[in-house]
């Protein structure tokens, strides 16, 4: 039993490594950039999975943690000369703190109301950033190219950031696995299935939900800093993009919510598909529509996502696919 469970973890980690090792093996910068986005999406989707997949709360504005982390991190690097790593950590912790402060209040809302509240928060934070001068207001912040020199030049810096996001993707998978196979995670899943019943059985739901929210906010904050450091520039419209939030939901849904492997498969599948559609001469003008039609088919016919579908069809896999 125990062994089988950890096979699930190894399968998931292996999947991430298989995706992430390519650019390191052939030192291809182009592949690295493509993979960077997949890794980032894995981190965001896996983090969202803690809230969506395990706890059953649909956060539509989860990107607020990515954007806020990016802003705080870039501000510390730009204005306070912090090194990237501590700035990224600070970005993550700030996002976690925001989740902690908001959690108790908005996690009382259920279903669609919670989803709407998260949209409201994302929009409020975006509008606030637009007015907040230390973060550059509408202009945002642009890093001086010199900053990259402390990391061995820009080329090297981008490699470093890639290693970091790769490591964090692995961490996100381990975190998902640990949550899923912990008492805390059991409580979360009980909440997902029936919050009232969970409460009656003794799950301290407000605390459990808040911590799930916090856990799901920290890593997005860290990769937010990494991304905008790499990007060299941040402004409100890019940092708090609601569409990106919804893409993450689609990815978790596509791969299978509540599973560890799901966000990984979803991220790889979704990004692969998007890259294909964007560059395909046949579809590129209507790629958005094609993606929408596919999403609709998935929602209507395979709501459990890839992992859920596999588990149902091939029961042997049930134990291996965490």
């Amino acid at each position: 039993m125990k062994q089988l469970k950890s096979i699930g973890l190894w399968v998931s980690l292996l999947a991430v490594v298989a995706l992430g090792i390519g650019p390191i093996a052939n030192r291809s910068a182009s592949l690295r950039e493509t993979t960077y986005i997949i890794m980032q999406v894995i981190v965001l989707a896996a983090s969202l999975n803690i809230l969506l997949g395990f706890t059953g709360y649909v956060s539509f504005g989860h990107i607020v943690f990515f954007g806020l982390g990016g802003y705080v991190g870039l501000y510390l690097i730009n204005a306070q000369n912090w090194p990237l790593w501590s700035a990224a950590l600070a970005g993550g912790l700030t996002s976690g703190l925001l989740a902690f402060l908001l959690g108790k209040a908005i996690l009382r809302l259920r279903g669609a109301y919670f989803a709407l509240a998260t949209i409201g928060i994302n929009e409020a934070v975006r509008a606030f950033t637009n007015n907040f001068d230390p973060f550059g207001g509408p202009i945002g912040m642009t890093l001086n190219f010199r900053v990259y020199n402390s990391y061995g030049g820009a080329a090297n810096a981008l490699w470093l950031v890639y290693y970091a996001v790769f490591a964090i993707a692995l961490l996100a998978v381990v975190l998902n696995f640990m949550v899923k196979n912990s008492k805390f995670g059991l409580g979360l899943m009980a909440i997902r299935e029936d919050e009232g019943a969970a409460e009656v059985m003794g799950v301290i739901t407000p605390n459990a939900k808040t911590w799930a929210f916090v856990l799901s906010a920290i890593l997005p904050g860290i990769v937010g800093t990494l991304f905008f450091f790499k990007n060299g520039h941040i402004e409100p419209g890019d940092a708090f993009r609601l569409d990106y939030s919804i893409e993450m939901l689609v990815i978790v849904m596509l791969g299978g919510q509540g599973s560890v492997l799901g966000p990984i498969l979803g991220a790889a599948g979704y990004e692969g598909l998007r890259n294909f559609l964007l560059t395909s001469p046949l579809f590129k003008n209507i790629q958005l529509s094609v993606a929408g039609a596919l999403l609709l088919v998935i929602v209507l016919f395979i709501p459990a996502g890839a992992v859920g579908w596999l588990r149902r069809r091939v029961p042997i896999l049930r134990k291996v696919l965490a």
Partner: protein
Amino acid sequence: MKRSLFVLLSLLILGSMAIAACGPATTPTAAPQTQAPAPATQAPPASTAPAQPATKTVTIGFTSSQTGSLNVESTRQYHGLQLWMDQVNKAGGVKLADGTVVTFKAQTYDDESNTDRVQQLYTKLATEDNADFLISPYSSGLAAAAAVIAQQYNKIMITTGAADDSTYQKGYTLVYQAYTPASHYLTGALDLLAKTDPSAKKIAVAYSTDSFSTSVVNALKTYATSKGYNIVLFEGYDPATTDFSALINKIQAAAPDAVMGGGHFQDGSTFAKQLFEKKIGAKFVALLVAPPEDQFSQLGDAALGVVGPSQWEPQVSFTQDSAQKAGLTWYGPTGADFTSTYKAAFNEDPTYHSAGGYAAGLILQKAIEDAGSLDTTAVAAALDKMDILTFYGHIKFDTSAANHGLQIGHEMVYVQWQKDSSGNLVKQIVWPAEGATAPLLYPIP
């Protein structure tokens, strides 16, 4: 005929909500493929092909916004660049010092109007597609993200459609700006106002809170204050704003002589329309981006008198003579040639985005010719030295460490919508005085 096709198409679209899930059919898109019947006579100068030259194809990499909010401007920029490329290739390419003849090919992807994929795509362009030179995406935000990649892979990038000054103050050495920087967008309008009516001193500034517009108005504010103007209102609005009533009421209460600001086309034209409807009574209105667009005239009377800065207009007539007068080298086609070939190729009038795209190519071509090689260092050196006049205007780059690559030669022109003798709205150039096609209509009737 075309109209009814359009209606049919859109009814099909409405109908296709119905069959949406069954997989949408490929819809014919407006984006025309270039089949430029470019008349060879109007080709830019290029070395005449020798007998048996070695040849090389140079890849120019860039992304454009085929989808998303920047799609219109970005597509025009793409068209301009494409026209340049077709013409230079048709004319036989560029001859290097070692006799190799270089022709160009474009490698491009859709950046969806957002930064997420810009770096991914530019890295792909720089490494996998082995692009020799890069052109920026449209808009300052996207260009800033692309600049990191260009510099890092030691590729020269000509930016166009990216006016923000800040990108060129961040230590890049290989990024060169074709546009007049944002900080100069509205300062000329102020000079124009000062010359026309020295007694007008109260200015209200209302601007879209996006990066570009905010940079423009911040520079305007500094400049206006230094010239003794009284800024009676200085406020931002969300770029998605459609109802400006509240803001206009405030402007009205501040009773300014002039209203300046705006942002992009959509908000700017809406703002202009509502300014008119509210009978605001300002004598002078200057807005960003929207007024130079031909569609701005759809506003009817609301467009009358509105002034806007433009990087280039078809009426702008720089010639070999003007180059001689200014002591500059003349380079490339004339404005009239550019306009007519562009129209022939894309069945639309060129705007400054188109001209900017073309100019970016032209700048690169000239630099390669001057350098006589494709080597980054040599071409960059040629760009640093460049000081030319083209149909698009004067091109010269700042070479100081603090602002390297910033455009310092090119000047904005200011257009105003006026009525011709038969009462039709026409766009006239009103500033700078040397290039004006009509005097400023002042105050707005």
